[in-house]
């Protein structure tokens, strides 16, 4: 097991297109790090550079303290799980899992011991003699993980391993992956475009966009203290609401002027932080769960105003209400027992203790 260091790594393709634009990342031993971002953000390219499947244009990648830029994949002591599993169709499950050990000339009884052990962890012992064709998607996924586990490598790399599974199986396998990591504790780099996967699996999440790292941090930190508008919008489902707002300074207190003549007082403890934004057009960000039916009104910094629902989406344990606020659609998360009807104005309460203020020019969250 080992730490992984990515130092100022750039990946440029022919024609000058840069997929990764100089990123830095330190992954600690035993850590589970998830690279997340939209398609084309450079997350898979980064993972493939760590694996040695893509050449590094400039910068340095080190695994366990050794710079691996010029070391071929087979000598990096890593294991990778691919999106489509990449199982050898002509080999049985046992042979698939044993292949890496066979090539490294491990003794037969040691290979058998390791394969049996991995098969037990992943609950695939009865499948060992089958060919991949005779397996379901979830079983293939387990075999691919088993192939990685038997090698006992320094680092596990996962490239969107759950994307080909249906929603139910994805949730199940997510838990399996987390369990496996808790058992073997191997340093893991995991790539996904699904922010739920990222949040549930990661010790730390790396949010990438357009070839750069937007923010690195534990899931809760990214959720509650996003550094950029991109992170604020990408993490969380439904996404954070972004409403254009003008920051006004009035007798020592700041207030936000929203469309529809809505005026919200900025919490006093944030006055210093947002002071520089006074007089400027900014973006007011608030998550749907902080925009609810009026409740906890006795607490500080709860502001109520009236909006008209356009669409109501009952989800069972909660109801999503889509409201229209002149130029911006706003999503509110309310209790399912709260009456709401499209077209009938309703009172909503914004918990401003959880508000965000974003500079539209730089995209930074203040």
């Amino acid at each position, binding site marked *: 097991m080992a730490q992984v260091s990515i130092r100022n790594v750039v990946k440029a393709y022919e024609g000058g297109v840069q997929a990764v634009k100089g990123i830095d990342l330190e992954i600690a031993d035993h850590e589970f790090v998830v690279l997340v971002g939209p398609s084309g953000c450079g997350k898979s390219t980064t993972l493939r550079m760590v694996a040695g*499947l893509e050449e590094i244009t400039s910068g340095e990648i080190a695994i366990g303290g050794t710079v691996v830029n010029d070391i071929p994949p*087979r000598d990096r002591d*890593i*294991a*990778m799980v691919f999106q489509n599993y*990449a199982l*050898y169709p*002509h080999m049985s499950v046992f042979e698939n899992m044993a292949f890496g050990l066979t090539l490294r000339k491990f003794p037969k009884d040691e290979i058998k011991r390791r394969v049996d052990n991995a098969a037990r962890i992943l609950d695939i012992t009865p499948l060992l003699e089958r060919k991949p064709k005779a397996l379901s998607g979830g079983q293939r996924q387990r075999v691919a993980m088993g192939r990685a586990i038997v090698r006992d490598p320094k680092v596990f790399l996962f490239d969107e391993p759950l994307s080909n599974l249906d929603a139910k199986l994805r949730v199940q396998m997510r838990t399996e992956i987390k369990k496996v990591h808790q058992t073997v504790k191997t340093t893991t780099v995991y790539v996904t475009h699904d922010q739920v996967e990222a949040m549930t699996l990661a010790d730390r999440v790396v949010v990438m966009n357009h070839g750069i790292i937007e923010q690195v941090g534990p899931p809760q930190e990214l959720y509650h203290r996003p550094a950029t508008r991109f992170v604020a919008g990408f993490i969380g489902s439904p996404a954070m609401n972004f409403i254009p707002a003008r920051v006004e300074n009035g007798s020592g207190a700041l207030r936000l002027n929203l469309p529809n003549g809505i005026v919200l007082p900025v919490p006093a403890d944030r006055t210093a932080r947002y002071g520089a934004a006074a007089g400027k057009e900014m973006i007011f960000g608030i998550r749907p769960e902080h925009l609810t039916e009026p409740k906890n009104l006795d607490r500080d910094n709860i502001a109520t105003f009236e909006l008209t629902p356009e669409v109501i989406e009952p989800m069972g344990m909660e109801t999503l209400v889509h409201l229209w606020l002149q130029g911006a659609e706003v999503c509110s998360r309310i209790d399912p027992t709260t009456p709401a009807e499209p077209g009938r104005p309703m009172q909503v309460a914004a918990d401003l203790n959880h508000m965000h203020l974003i500079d539209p020019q730089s995209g930074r969250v203040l």
Partner: protein
Amino acid sequence: MADGNVVTAPGVPAAVAPPRTGTLQKIARRKSTLAFVMTLPLLVVIGGLVAYPFFYALYLSMLNKRMTRFIGLENYTFLLSRETFQGVIWQSVLFAVGAVIAKALIGFILAHVLHALPAKGQRKWRGMLLVPWVIPPAISTLAWWWLFDPSYSALNWVITAIGVPPVAWLGEPSWARFSVILVNVWYGAPFFMIMYLAALKSVPDQLYEAAAIDGATGWQKLIHVTVPMMKNIIAITVLFSLIVTFANFDIVRILTNGGPQDKTHIFGTYAFQVGIQSGDLPLGSAVSLFMFPILAIFAVFVLRGVTRRSREMAG
């Protein structure tokens, strides 16, 4: 809609009662009947051009020279007892097996070289390497004949220029056998190349990436990933080529006409010589049918393997 019980599909008049159908009409409407009618032209072509000539040749091969009397397997036993024909069997096997192995190896190497080329230049090279296969073999063999010519041989001109004595390419039995195999390989290798190239392109890149991470070297990837993934194409291509090469006629006919001293005759040219030129059609038919049982058994085994692998791997 006329009443509550009848639902009419758009465009179908409600008032029309379903026609009473007879047995013939029912048969005509069956999907299997339609399928049979659709495949009938192909069945007629196969029957006329494959089945009928085959069975007629089989019948002919059991007649005497004048084709007046049924003599059973006498033509076959007679052929087997003749030294010339024993030589033809050996030469045919040498020609077909030698040429197919060489074509398969060269095709495999060329396919890998082409596959490794950048996509931009690949098409150009692919086109050029296919040229031997698209030129009519009778014409290209004539060009080879000129290259092997004892007086004007371009090949001899080249080798004498580097101090090697000239070779009687078509005049000496061993060299003549080598020459006919060489021309067949030159003509047939592109077919293997294009088949193998298609097979190579169908191997998912991620299998090679997985193998690289598992610790495979280039050679190990070839042995453990490429070859197993190409097994079916290799088997089918070898089978197809073996059948076609055993049945070859034009190359030997043009280059050596079976000579010197019948040492390059193969089934096709010998059958022509015996059956057409010497006027013994039954014996010629027997010659031409000689390899059928062996090739048929070989084909059954190869195709069984192909089916088994497809079942195991596809999907």
